[in-house]
């Protein structure tokens, strides 16, 4: 299996003067296709920042990141947009579904950006059936449970067939059963050949992850087995 994400010497600094803080301080990470890596750590340790810089949503102060062979740290805004559209799927803690659109329309949303209208719709339909979201697909987010919304968000992340899926606290707003189902779903995404990086507080994540890393003082280190 090839390496999808390679990150080395990541540095990200917030604030200035006395409030200056190195949230990432030399963190390094490698994730291969078909691998699910869980990143854990206390609140404020920089887990979400790690995900943001991996996705090119935020800029590094130092270090290098490659995603699917593309040097994220050197890409301009347009190239980053293309990279996110074609190679990266994002899952958020608060789902971030567009409230005015139905579940199916939310799933197909990223396909609008890459011009894959009909093909995107076909993939979305397949994903909806595959993830058991046929009923949820015709409803708006406000009418759905948290678990249904998060599964739709995962389907949305997969619709452009990305090489990498980045999930930020995907079980944070879910009850135990729904959370477990989402973790299983992410596991199956990795089994399907994608690299998955999961940032979480959820202790059950260790059970589904191939590796668990702990973010401590801006560096990633292997966590002891659960």
């Amino acid at each position: 299996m090839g390496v999808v994400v390679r990150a080395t010497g990541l540095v990200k600094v917030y604030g200035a003067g006395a409030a200056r803080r190195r949230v990432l301080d030399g963190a390094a990470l490698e994730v291969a296709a078909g691998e699910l890596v869980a990143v854990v750590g206390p609140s404020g340790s920089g887990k979400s920042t790690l995900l943001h810089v991996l996705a090119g949503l935020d800029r590094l102060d130092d270090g290098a990141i490659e995603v699917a062979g593309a040097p994220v740290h050197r890409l301009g805004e347009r190239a980053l947009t293309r990279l996110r559209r074609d190679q990266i799927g994002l899952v958020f803690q608060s789902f971030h579904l567009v409230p005015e659109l139905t579940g199916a329309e939310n799933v197909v949303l990223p396909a609008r950006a890459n011009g894959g209208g009909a093909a995107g719709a076909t993939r979305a339909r397949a994903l909806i059936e595959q993830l058991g979201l046929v009923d949820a697909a015709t409803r708006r987010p406000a009418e759905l449970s948290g678990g249904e919304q998060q599964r739709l968000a995962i389907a949305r992340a997969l619709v452009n067939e990305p090489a990498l899926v980045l999930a930020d606290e995907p079980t944070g707003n879910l009850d135990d059963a729904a959370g477990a189902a989402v973790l299983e779903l992410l596991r199956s995404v990795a089994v399907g050949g994608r690299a998955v990086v999961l940032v979480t507080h959820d202790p059950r994540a260790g059970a589904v992850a191939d590796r668990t890393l702990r973010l401590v003082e801006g560096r990633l280190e292997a966590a002891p087995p659960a």
Partner: protein
Amino acid sequence: MRRALGLAVARLRARPGRTALAGLGILAAGAMAGAALTVSFGLATGFDRAADRADLPDVIARFDNTRTPAFVDRRVRALPDVAARSFRLEITNVHLSGNGHRSGQGSLEVLVAGRRRGYAVVAGRDVSDRRGGEVVIERGLADQFGLGVGDKLHIGQLTVRVAGIAVGPDNVAFPLARTARVYVPSGPLAARFGPAPVNVAELWLRDPSKLDEVLTQARAVSYGLRDLRFITRGGVRATLDQAAGLIVALLSAFALVTLGAAALMLAASASAEVQRRMRTIGVQRALGFTRGQVTLQHGVEGALLALPAAAAGVAAGALAAGGPTSDLLATLNELPPGAALLPWLALAVLAIVAVVAAASAWPAWRAAGRPATEVMRGGDLGRPRRRGRRVSSGGGYFALGARLAGARRGRLLATVAALGAAVAVVLLMLSLASLLDRLKEDPALLGKRYTFTVGDVGARQLVGSVPGVAAVGERYQVDGADAFALGSPVRLIAYPGDHTRFESPPLASGRRVRAANEAEVGQGLAQALGLDLGATLAVELQGGEARFRVVGIDRALDNEGRIAFVQPGRVVRADPAVNPVLAVRLTEDADPDRVAARLTALGVPPQRAGGATTSNAAFLGVLADVLRVLAGLTGVVCLYALVQGLALTARERRSTVAVLRATGAGQREVAALFAGAAVAAVVPALLVGIAVHQWLLAPAVAHLAAGYADLPVGAGAPEILVVALGLAALGLGAAAWMTRRARREPVVVGLREE
């Protein structure tokens, strides 16, 4: 209440940007209201204000032969109910010069007897018999010549000092009126030339409702006074109407409509502001706030925001419109409202505060009545239609933007209502401007089918032989007064045979004239004199009275509709001095310039048929200023409504835009999204605006402005195209601006929004 006040203040201070945006909208609408109120109040009350301040007489009698004051006084003493009288000698065609300007149209008003003047001194002081070498000049003359109190004026060879400047509301001001009036005391003149005779008598009545009796008696005792003519306060008003009444009425109606539009925009924007807070209302209800508390809080917040913004806006609008309105009133010899306007402006501020408070409280009341969870979840999202299981790509980001805007139905409706009102008002303004131009220049608008008149009636055959001439006919026109209401002017237009070959205003009721004793009257005249079909129209002409039976009522615009079409027989009998001209109607394909050149070459130079309004350029310039101020304010409100709608959408969609960018939407896609949202508001607003204008505002303005005539105020294709292009430009500009703002924000900031 105190708690609601505290909470409202805290909320306003917590969001300074949003508060400023909402405040700006209220300020803009307030400015519109202030300007509209200033224009409409100023114009509606200008004459009465000036007449009261000037102590305008109830009756002014003019006669051609000068008489001694004692002779005229004997006649006046025979009249019942006269409270006071003054006599003047009016000398016309006097040469005036001063400050590098000159005019041969001066009118010297020698104040021979009586204490009451009939004019208001607005600068300096009045003249008196004790001071020689001083005059009071009318304001129009002072403005045109650039004269002030203390300056020198030359009357023929005589040099006098300007002691005061006055407004005489019995006529419009120079140069809209042909003559420039100069008031001089008779004492110094009497000392030099002997006692002055008089040819004008001004009468003030104890009971103005007995005017008709006084006039009847006056005619009975007027022997020795040749060509006696009376003009009453009502007659003065009618004279002023002839000069500018139609336009002033149109402007007043326009201002009233603008007021209504401003109220609608305020309500729409306040309602949109509450729609944005649906989730907060849901949380408040969940925390135990009563429905009344939630409503009160929003109402108080709306009022708190509206009070300073409305006060500033109304003041700004009044100041902006005050100058042009005063100029317009000055040309009509009327006075600006001054402090009398203040209570109305204060009332407008209170009305705006009430509208905003009510428009904020009402949706809050409705929302607070729904289950808290429902409100928290979706605000005013419409219920989704059940769709099939088919999944489509959905039509791109443009369509998505339109859907996002359309999903907030309340907000979209409010934005569309505000924009639609602005579109309707701007269309109305453009239509009005176009109508003014056409009234000025297009004789066909007045029902005139002839293009030229030729003074030499004997050249009828010669004129008829010119290529391009379709018909030639004699046209008589004479001005008189209604024999029953002597102050009411009437214009008789007579053609031998069928007048519709040359003038054909639409017939409102009855039929066309067929016999010498019949008349078709304009609706303006019918309304003024209470004439109906079958009634008798008696007109006092120079040589006697002419009577006609009313057989038709026309929708005539010419001369404010105070006209009557008749046949010439009785007109010539009552006024043998009346001279006809030749009315020349052209064929449809004729080139008027070529025909005019040919007629001139044949020695019968033609005159072009004119329009309805005065051709005085300065007057029309002042009118254009008033229109520009109102239009500018409307445009600002239109832009504000659009930007506010988009800014609110962008602010609320911050996280959605961030998610779209995070999932691969670039600048083009974000721009398409905002363009779609803008189009979702702009297209229906344009349609609503056009519909409201064509079927509501234009007919209403036409009705308000001239109940006596049909005015074609409707917008044509050019006006609609201009507004559509302007709105599209505004929409695209606003979308581009919002795209730029959205793109400058880091994606992660938007993602943290929820």
